[in-house]
């Protein structure tokens, strides 16, 4: 299982824990991630709202590089994933955009690189039976609210990933690890990702209601697979608590971190210390479940 890996900008900064745990888990499960050489920003930030051609050309530059590698592209960040998928979709559907991209990149790209989210690789290529067999510890007794955000599953016609209203990929992984995945109502609610810095008030409102639902559902932690979601949910809890008088202390962990724990890795190897809200309860529970 070899893939071209597109880490995305946050992987080298705010989401180093995601990056780190992804690599650890991939190695343990025999997924060979070959980082795309010279990758650049996907445009998920301000770029994609500025100009349609720019919005497609930025991801296309990366896709074209991967095309040369003759591998499928694996992405972990939901925003990057969404941009890549949209670019492929736009380029395939509109010849004028493909032409525009050709002019911008000075090369042709036909939109054919297969873009896969790490979750897809885990569930489809590796498969739950293999994962289950590799587990050393379990999430038994841990109640997990799986949070997908909006970019991973939408628009359904473009990303074609899981059920846009009630996705189950993360839940299936959590269940396979022995944890209890909760049916809660905010799986695909928006966290305010794009407004993270410009309109913190909106973000506080949106993430506040997501955290509230997770608490009401009785979650021990929220599991995510996107660095934007993670930072919004994790980082803003202090502000929310200050502004609303609540006392949220909800760990927001990457699914790769949970998987890494169950595969037998220590919290240090998986970047747990980088979480703003410590996941001590998670670690304690997994530790208590012990080695098989």
């Amino acid at each position, binding site marked *: 299982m070899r893939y071209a890996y597109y880490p995305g900008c946050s992987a080298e900064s705010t989401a180093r824990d995601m990056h780190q745990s992804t690599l650890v888990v991939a190695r343990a499960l025999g997924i060979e991630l070959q980082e795309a050489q010279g990758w650049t920003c996907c445009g998920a930030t301000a770029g994609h709202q500025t100009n349609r051609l720019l919005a497609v050309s930025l991801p296309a530059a990366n896709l074209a590089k991967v095309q040369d590698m003759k591998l499928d592209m694996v992405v972990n960040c939901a925003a990057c994933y969404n941009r890549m998928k949209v670019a492929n979709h736009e380029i395939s559907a509109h010849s004028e955009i493909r032409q525009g991209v050709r002019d911008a990149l000075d090369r042709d790209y036909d939109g054919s690189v297969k873009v896969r989210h790490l979750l897809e690789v885990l569930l489809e290529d590796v498969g739950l039976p293999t994962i289950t067999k590799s587990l050393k510890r379990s999430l038994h007794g841990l109640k997990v609210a799986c949070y997908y955000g909006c970019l991973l599953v939408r628009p359904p016609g473009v990303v074609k990933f899981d059920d846009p*209203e009630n996705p189950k990929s993360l839940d299936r992984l959590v269940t396979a690890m022995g944890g209890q995945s909760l049916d809660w109502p905010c799986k695909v609610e928006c966290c305010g990702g794009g407004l993270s810095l410009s309109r913190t008030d909106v973000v506080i409102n949106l993430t506040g209601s997501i955290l509230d639902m997770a608490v009401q559902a*009785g979650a021990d932690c929220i599991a995510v697979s996107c660095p934007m979601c993670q930072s919004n949910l994790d980082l803003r809890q202090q502000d929310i608590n200050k502004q609303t008088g609540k006392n949220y202390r909800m760990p927001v962990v990457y699914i790769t971190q949970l998987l890494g724990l169950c595969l037998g890795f220590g919290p240090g190897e998986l970047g747990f210390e980088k979480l703003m809200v410590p996941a001590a309860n998670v670690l304690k529970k997994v530790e208590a479940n012990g080695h098989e």
Partner: protein
Amino acid sequence: MSNNGDKKIGAVLVQGGGIAGVQAALDLANSGFKVYLVERDAAIGGMMAHLDKTFPTGDCATCIVSPKLVECARNLNIEILTLSELTDLYGKPGNFKATVRRYPRYVDESKCTGCSECTQVCPVDIPDEFNRCLGTRKGIAKLYAQATPNIFGILKNGHSPCKLKCPAKVNVQGYVQLIKQKEYLKAVALIRQRNPLSAICGRICPHPCESECMRGKADDPIAIRLLKRFASDQEMEMLAAGKLTLPEEKTPAPAAKKVAIIGGGPAGLTAANDLAEAGFAVTVFEAMPAAGGMLRYGIPEYRLPKKVLDHEIEIIRRKGVKFVYNCRIGRDVTFQTLQKDYGAVFVSAGAQKSRKLRVDGEDINGVLHGIEFLREAASAKKPAVKERVLVIGGGNVAVDVARTALRLGAKQVEMVCLEQRHEMPAYPEEIEATLAENIKIHNGWGPKRILGNGSVTGIELKRCTRVFDDQKRFNPAYDENDLTTIEADQIIVAIGQAVDEKLVEHIYVQNERGCFKADPVTGQTSIAGVFAGGDSASGPASVIDAVAAGKRAAESIERYLLGRELLGGRFEESLRPIPPAFLPTLDKVEKKSRPHPEELAPVVRLNNFDEVEKGLTEEQALAEAARCLNCALCSECNRCVETCKQHAIDHAMRERTVTLEVGAVILTPGFAEFDASRKGEFGYGRYSNVVTSVQFERMLSAAGPFEGHVIRLSDGREARRIAWIQCVGSRDSTCGNEYCSSICCMMATKQALVAGDHVEGLDATIFYMDIRAHGKDFDQYYERARAKENIHYVKSIPSRIVQLPGSKDLRVAYLDENSKLAHKEFDLIVLSVGMEPPHSMAGMAASLDIKLNEFGFCATDRLQPLCTSQPGVFVGGAAQEPKDIPETVTQASGAASMAMELLASARNSLVTKKSYPVEHDVTDEEPRLGVFVCHCGINIAGTVDVEQVVRRIEHEPNVVLATHTMFTCADTSLSNIKDMIHQHRLNRIVVASCTPRTHEPLFRETLREAGLNPYLFELANIRDQCSWVHSAVPETATEKAIELVKMSIARARKLWPLEGGTLAVDQTGIVIGGGLSGMTAALALAKQGFDVHLIEQANRLGGTLHDIHRTFEHENIAAFTSGLIDQVQKHPRIKSYLEAEITGIKGHIGKFHVALAQGSKNLEVTGGAIIVATGAQAAKTTEYLYGKSDRVLTQVELEKQLHDQTWPAQGQNIVMIQCVGSRNEKHPYCSRICCSMAVKNALAIKKLDPTANVYVLYRDVRTYGFREIYYQQAREAGVVFIRYTPEVPPQVTDNNGLVVTLKSPDLPEPLAIEADNVVLSTGVEVDLKNNKQLSDMLKVPLNADGFYVEAHMKLRPVDFTTEGIFLCGLAHSPKFIDENIAQARAAAARAATVLSKTQLDVSAQVAYVDQQKCISCMTCVTVCPYSAPYCNKDGKGQIEAAKCMGCGICAAECPARAIQLHHFETDQFMVMIKQLFASENVENGEKKVAAQRPDKILTGKA
């Protein structure tokens, strides 16, 4: 007969038994055609049977539809084919051959009496589709309580995975269900049908079934083996306790054919069992001193106690099987002898020899072999074991050997095998038990040589590197350098079994690799009449495999001996797997694990052979059986079969096809509900408190799963805050349904209103896009709902429902009236699901070659709305376009008219009319009563002591015969009643049973067949009104039943024969109004072969049709109009009267006289039926400067200008204003057509000039059905739709140019539009003066808006309450061309039910006036809803029998008591009351006194 194909066939096939199919069938059957009513479901009734109430009438849907269903069932000329569908059609219009597939009901329709005893014993609970899975139903059930036909049916899916996986095909689901019901003996009997070794397999079967169990995919598979053991143990315990005795010993008949069986192991025993049951003389030749084979001499007793084995062998022996022990083939008897002396031989000798290791040292003293070791261990002389025993092998025998050796005293037992632990062929639980007993297993070693000198000292082993090769074949490889040694005093080799070579020599059938060669299906060997099975044919296998082989051989041997072919139609061919889509869904299964029975502790096991595993406790077994998911639906447990006293149940029924000869086909398959789970954002299927509108109907229904309680499914609490979300699956391109489903707005409104009656403090919110209340009187209904404080209409469709964790309340985000985001929480949310084509539509269309539209509905033309693309095949109802009940009924009648027109020449050619014997004259006879009291199975007899009732009434005066019957309505009972009438010269019959509503006609019919007048019958309702309601107090109920029967007896004495009259029918139709509807109706009647008088006020035919120039679909309506006028004028049967005024109408159904003034000429036309089609016109207005500015015009004027190309295209800005003069206080109704008309004209303007700005100011856009597409097109073309509210209507001013100003609730600021033209949609209104005059003459009512009022808004949309007069067109209510055409044809079909008869029967149950007593107050004339009473020439009231419906209102109201209703006369009731209150005095006084016969018994007119 070459022209046979041209002959018209007077029969029609109607596909779909909903209200449309029922109406079409009734119209056709009542006008001289044979009807096959074909319905896919188990009962007719369709969607209406699911509904609670109807809008806007508030009727109980079931109450109004049931009588129609019953009427269908009773009609001699309607044959109802349920569970059937039309699959093919050959031939041509007028002469088709229709292929109908009939699915099995598994209940004989002709035998089932609907008593429900089967359903009470059925153990299977499955989701009830009728209740949309809100509750469960039994495997055998009626579709719904009032189902027609009133019979039961069984649901099957196929055969469950457990049964199919079982080699012997034991009905697992069946016996598990019986155990659930504590019917343990029945469970064992069911097991033994396929496996006579029930108790044995309950212990040692490897249970392959459990690996297939669907429950195992949710949590744990059902513990099937343990349940089997539990049931079998109950049998043995009962025997031991003396509560049960073994069956009688049987001996085969002397002439029975003989079968020899070689070997009494499981295969031989099974074959012996089956063949003995089939009546053959079976002898089993067994080499050992007792039967059982490996069961006795291989399986150690700690797994299978000998007493269990003996028990089951004894049961087989008692069936007449002879056992010859110690008889070895070739030694004690030769195979040839058997062949000669027996008709057939079954070889099931087993594999009784151990395989050898073939390594050095195997012959050293102390090396034993497994099979022989076990055989000895099972005999009295136990083999000696040494201290350290080593067993070689990893299979079940090896494990048995090891554990036996331990029990025989070995100090240390070890095992060695090639396989790794997970590869070992022994059953996992056996390996577990072995390890638990401290037996060490050395995995992955193979023997190199056995060590020892004179006696064994140990074994040298080599490492086994692989057991199976890449092809998974047994092909071990070794590492010869990796060696080890284990010390042992005794080595037992248990590496496999083989058939005794000597036996193979003696039995000279062909063999292969040491086994007898036998056909895998039949068991037949190379020698005719010799069969083989079990281990000796297949090689070593499990006990259940052997049983299966025995079954197969027995089936073959029976066939062989009876001279039938061996293959073809064998049992296993009857099995079919459940299609994967129908397997139970697992996501809702509540997780529960399987039980683990107790075991003897390992320390207690060691020195004895006590059974290790205990059985389940009863509590465990019942809980375990209840976990079964009933994959196959019906479990075929046969409880119903044994319970049904009518022997109506037949599990072997199969699907079949029939071919019907019909002249025409009408398709009325209805619709399917949109699958709400496709709109994931609403969480249907995910959130338990989100239901569909149809589920909500079932919730509201008193006969539904919650008996009318509106509850939350999550916690059963009453739902108080309820929201409806409209347009789920309608008007939605994301799911491909761009059309409007037409009914949902009204349905939600009705549901909110009805829920208000069910839920105190209801808070209802309806989220909608437009409220489409476009039907007759709908808008008034909607306004009433809107005026309620607790019903909120919110014009916003939420994008998502969120379920709050914990409370499971539902939160909805929406835009409020200020376009601000709002949140609201609800207890329950109802999704108003739209209509989709029925699931069967695509397949049917393909096989009948019928075109469908883009959405999969039947494609029709707006000018031919009832015709499919296939001539002779007509369509009606929702399958053509979403619509509500009245339009569905209308289209159904219209389609019936189409068929009548096609088949006019064949009318009355295939109908049956029953003839009866001459009525016996009872005039001068004393009453001689026969009383029949019905048990109704246990429905009555379970509560009421029926026999006591008979005893207590049999000495009542005039009672000649009193008896009781199981089902009085059963065919045999009815014949018996007829016999009794003749035998005892009975002249009055009383039946005490269910209800006259369903059964009176049947018993009356029986009287007529026996030559008695049907009115000499009386029914005492001791079921619905006694046993059912008083089931808790049987004794009092019995007393009440006695009273009821006595009252009926009293009344029966007073019954007299009545005879209805007949009246001649003038077979001419009269149509009033010559517009589209009138012309269409006249043509329909004329084409059916009736003469028609068509009366028109104006000087030309066509009416307002002349104002319509184009429709969405048709450019040239003028051509259609002139073509239609031409057809009417040229038709020889139609006589048109233009400029004719109606001056008077007299007469009644069958003969109306209509007086006309045509200019100066006065004339009269007569006919048997009248159709009113007087139409309506565009309303006038003076609003919005109409008439003051020439730039303000109506839509009709605009359309004319557009058509004449005189539209000046005066400018760029056109403003259309909707609802001008409609939906206001003066005209509270919606004119239905104006929204579409505006859209049509707007699109036309846009087509002329795409840059023109067209603004449509509307209140609700009501482009219902497929017209919604044009609304969408208009928006796409840039037409701007702006909403206004009636509180703030638009203003039009003209100061140097038209300006329209308005304040829209959807826009923040007021608007002012400079308009070049203002176009007004003014709606439709009737000519009130004209309608008043005509309605007075016809004596039919008008509503407040001046439209005619039909007999019943839902189910009689074109009838008047006055018989013989029918209604269609705009005179009924505003509607489109296609709707008028359908309705006109409907009126023609309804009129044909009168005109097709030469004479009509007049009911005998009519009122009459005693002229002496009449005081001429004419109260009767005032109160009669049917205009039957009139003032006669003497100034007295008199009743026109032809019009009387026998309702009795006049009799009740008459202040002089001058009116009596035949059959319900005062004294007939008084005697009942006297009987009830007064007692014996009355009884004695009345005794044997024949009642006085009234003066008149002949009613009606000749």
